[in-house]
């Protein structure tokens, strides 16, 4: 267990360092934007006002409120305080709502959509890839070109195609939103059913893209392992095929798990765009609103939350990887 603790602490340290860096980037980058965001809001509010001192007063009030007239360092501490208080400050475009208020509901939608979709896609993709490597022949010949084609499709393209086929032409599923526009979120059957129906298209568009990429990777890993010396040796020893296949896929699986940890960020990016296409009420749509409103507290908060989600997912995968592959622990305890 000693080796594992070292591994765990090492990973935890890395997680914290990355978090701090991500946090800094999140604070600094949006504030480098040219132009004064407060001026934009004030000009919108003061439309038709001819009294310049009045406009000046409004500007002053908002600049004080958002803290944009303070030095960068002080702004940073205000930001840190807001984050720890949990409200992320006020949204510029949707004042007087706080950022936390705007994104509170969308986090649940995004988390409930993306992580199950990525995991399901990963599982199906790996199973298909392993089968293709093991069965070869016709299955492989059909599955591979399809996977290559599907994985080359941009995520938003898959979303649009699914939407046009199943939403617009066949009318099986609704084309936008997270639930029926005539419903109020509640625990009624009609609401839950509406959520399930609206869930299908965004879910499958993410799953399909993930399947393609994972199947290709798993296939080449399995082919590699199937040709390894230990497989030949086991065959000569007369060990049952079923048992060998078990070992082979366990070994082929390991790089795929690391692959998942590394590619989860990219996948989330693609899935966010898919959310926008389906007007799914998640973080993707929130980013879109924030971009359109020039609302940098909102952008900062959304990207920070996405980063944290990805970091945690990564951390969990790496930690469980240590359990699955004993060699990792061994390498750490030296």
């Amino acid at each position, binding site marked *: 267990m000693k080796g594992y603790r070292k591994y765990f602490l090492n990973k935890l340290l890395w997680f914290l360092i*990355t978090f701090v860096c991500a946090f800094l980037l999140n604070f600094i980058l*949006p504030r480098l*934007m*040219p132009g004064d965001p407060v001026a934009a809001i004030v000009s919108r509010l003061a439309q038709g006002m001819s009294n310049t001192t009045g406009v000046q007063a409004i500007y002053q009030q908002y600049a004080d409120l958002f803290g944009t007239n303070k030095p960068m360092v002080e702004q940073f501490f205000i930001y840190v305080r807001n984050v720890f208080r949990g409200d992320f400050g006020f949204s510029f475009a949707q004042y007087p709502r706080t950022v936390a208020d705007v994104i509170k509901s969308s986090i649940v939608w995004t988390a409930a959509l993306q992580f199950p979709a990525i995991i399901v896609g990963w599982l199906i993709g790996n199973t298909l890839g392993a089968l293709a490597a093991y069965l070869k022949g016709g299955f492989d010949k059909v599955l591979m070109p399809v996977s290559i084609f599907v994985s080359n499709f*941009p995520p938003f393209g898959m979303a649009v195609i699914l*939407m046009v086929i199943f939403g617009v032409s066949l009318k099986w599923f609704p084309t936008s939103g997270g639930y029926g526009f005539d419903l109020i979120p509640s625990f009624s059957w009609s609401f839950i059913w509406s959520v399930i129906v609206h869930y299908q298209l965004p879910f499958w568009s993410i799953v399909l893209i993930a399947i393609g990429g994972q199947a290709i990777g798993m296939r080449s890993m399995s*082919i590699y392992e199937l040709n390894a010396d230990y497989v030949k040796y086991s065959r000569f020893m007369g060990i049952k095929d079923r048992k060998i296949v078990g070992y082979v896929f366990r070994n082929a699986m390991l790089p795929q798990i690391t692959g998942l940890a590394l590619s989860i960020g990219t996948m989330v990016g693609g899935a966010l765009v898919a959310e926008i296409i389906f007007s799914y009420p998640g973080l993707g749509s929130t980013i879109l609103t924030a971009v359109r409103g020039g609302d940098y507290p909102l952008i900062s908060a959304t*990207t920070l939350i996405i*980063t944290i989600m990805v970091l945690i997912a990564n951390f969990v995968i790496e930690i469980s990887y240590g359990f699955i592959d004993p060699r990792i622990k061994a390498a750490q305890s030296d």
Partner: protein
Amino acid sequence: MKHTFQQFFRSGKFVFGFSIFVAILLLTFIYPLIIPDPPLEIVAQGTFFEPGIYVSVYDSLGTTPHTLNLDGAAAKRIASKLNEEDRLAMKEWLVAAGIPENEIDTADTQKLLDLWMDNYDPTENIPGMTNARRNYFIRLNNSLKGLLSTEGAIIAEVNPETGTLEQVDVITQTDYVNINQVANVRVLPFGTDNFGRDVLTELVAATRVSLVIGFVSGTIATLIGLTLGLLAGYIGGVVDDIIMFFTNLFTVIPSFVLLILISFSIGQEQRGAVTIAVVIGLTSWFWTARAVRAQVISLRNRDHVNLSKLSGHSIVHIIITDILPYIASYVIMALILQISAGILAEAQLSILGLGPRTTVVPTLGLMMNWALIYQAQILGKWWAYLPVLVTIALITFSMNLMNTGLDQVFNPALRE
């Protein structure tokens, strides 16, 4: 090195992918030579004109008519004017009037019309029908009568002296115009987009810009990744630690998030296509750096490298002659993937509204963004988004095919 490049073309997959790619590339250069219209010129007044050949109505009146007597021309004319809704309404009336439903075929225009003419009686009162509905049928009946007339259309001019209309010409139903004799004909193979621009011309220009974005971002990412990977792997020590710190950091922070933040902070005015490309390049080198470093570490202690060191060659010389040739194949594969990833990243950014500023050049992502904002996918205007999607898919597909081909050349285990 030359030998390496020759090997590429032994793989069927590589050659196939390469041909698709070259075909797309050639098209983006040849098309503007043939049709030199500016890609963002607004030609159509209105949104989403369907694909087709647009013939000037005014000009076709001026040309000499040719008489063609074609069978079924009248039926076709009526069929094209009688829409689906009217057909169903006719069926509804006929059924209500007591005609058995299985005798009515809404697809057969001639039979439907005959049945209608025989049975329709405007005075007949069908129980349960509203007055508005009955008036609708009377109007429908009148318009059907107009359809069946065999007289030509009259062209009249205003007499400048009396102000009355005077007949100048009659266009009979058998008059045809030869499209070659009409002065103004515009072919719009993919129709027009939401702003009324020719989609094909726009698409070709957009493909070229997107490819440039891909090349610039891919080259920047690969060069940075290669340099840092070589330094980290070959020199090792503190340099390695520092480089790997940043590489590990940025592989975990989603690059898409970085892209959003940076493009947002650049601001709408400053965002040109090349700026976006540079930003994409700067946020996507981590993979290449990691992989190059791993390969260099395994090469660093080989005999030929050690021999080179003993002979007193400089680090630059050793890297170029003893290490680069071994990782060249990998670097090229990484470059290809980076190019297609760059094109995709631009498209995703543009959908978020963070793409290049919109007035100068079209890109594939911007075209997709415009189509989505105007809900082309829900309105069924496939020509606004499908050609864009197919182009993106073809580019990434050809790139990945090249990559798989190369993989098979260099990894014998993957060969079939």
